[in-house]
């Protein structure tokens, strides 16, 4: 049996899972629920405030890092889940899952460079 190349995607999966475990709940709370629940004033999500937060190189790197790792974590886990649901066409599933993650990565890179 040949040595697997899975360590690459698994490494991303593990790193992304760890990041997501620490950061994602509060991220969802802040971006989607804090304003409707009245915990933050609405202008926390305003164009000026958010653009301001993302100006520095460090913030861009951190945001990119967190979202990059998280999306690849999700992509890999979804690939495995498809297999668990009995979907056997692994190559197709791989292309879809990792393809979406790659497209999202590219989109995010371009967006962050422009902000």
């Amino acid at each position, binding site marked *: *049996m*040949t*040595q*697997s190349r*899975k*360590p*690459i995607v*698994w*490494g991303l999966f*593990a790193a992304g899972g760890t990041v997501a475990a620490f950061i994602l709940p509060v991220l969802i709370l802040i971006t989607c629920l804090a304003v409707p629940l009245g915990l933050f004033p609405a202008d926390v999500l305003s164009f000026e405030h958010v653009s301001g937060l993302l100006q520095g190189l460090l913030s861009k790197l951190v945001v990119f890092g967190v979202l990059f790792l998280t999306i690849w974590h999700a992509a890999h886990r979804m690939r*495995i889940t498809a*297999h*668990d649901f*009995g979907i056997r066409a692994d190559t197709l599933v791989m292309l879809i899952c990792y393809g979406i993650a790659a497209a999202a990565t590219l989109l995010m890179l371009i967006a962050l460079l422009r902000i």
Partner: protein
Amino acid sequence: MTERTVELEVLRYDPDKDDAPGFQTYTVPYREDWVVLDAINYVKDELDRTLSYRWSCHMAVCGSCGMMINGEPSLSCHTFLRDCPEKIRIEPLQNFPVERDLVVVMDDFIDKLGSVKPYIVAKEERSVDDGEYLQTPAQLAKFKQYTACINCLLCYSACPQYALNDDFVGPAALALAHRYNLDSRDVGRSAREDVVASNPGIWECSFVGACSEVCPKSVDPAAAIQQTKIASAGDYFMKFLMPWKRK
């Protein structure tokens, strides 16, 4: 006063006569101190001599008596009647071909166990005159829990990845590989890599964790596999970044 009884619904299969397995029900006396194995032995001794099954030590160390008890992979010598409902469904271990009645074909596991080199791969040849290996309590503690495996195959029955793909090397074999990888006397990690770090090796595992939940000896094969993934991923990236480094 009628004696309290228990109903055993046993999946029978006679390869000479049957096209497929079918259930047969037996009524056995209930005894407070009986395990399911005692009830099955009662069936064989008193009711139906044709019932076939494996057992030996009757104390959860030999690993022979694994079977599905009410849908859960269990050792029949380790499952008390008093902890079971009045109707007990008994089937051969899931995910293995049925030889006859409750006897399964274990060959796949035996092959896989052999393939992970479950023995000390020593740095150099030693003779008895060289004396024993020296090992500290801390070195022993590192791998001790993984030595407890009794090859009962409950973990293979619980593992859905093994059910979906029987190429998977499986929990017990990988846990035993890990036992030797962690042993300070062993240098065989790279020798085992071909099987352990392959796609049907650790990478088929998705950490369901059912194997560890059903293990009667608390070996925790799921933990063994995850630790091996981390070590293997580390090795992989080291090879990439520092190909000159010898293991």
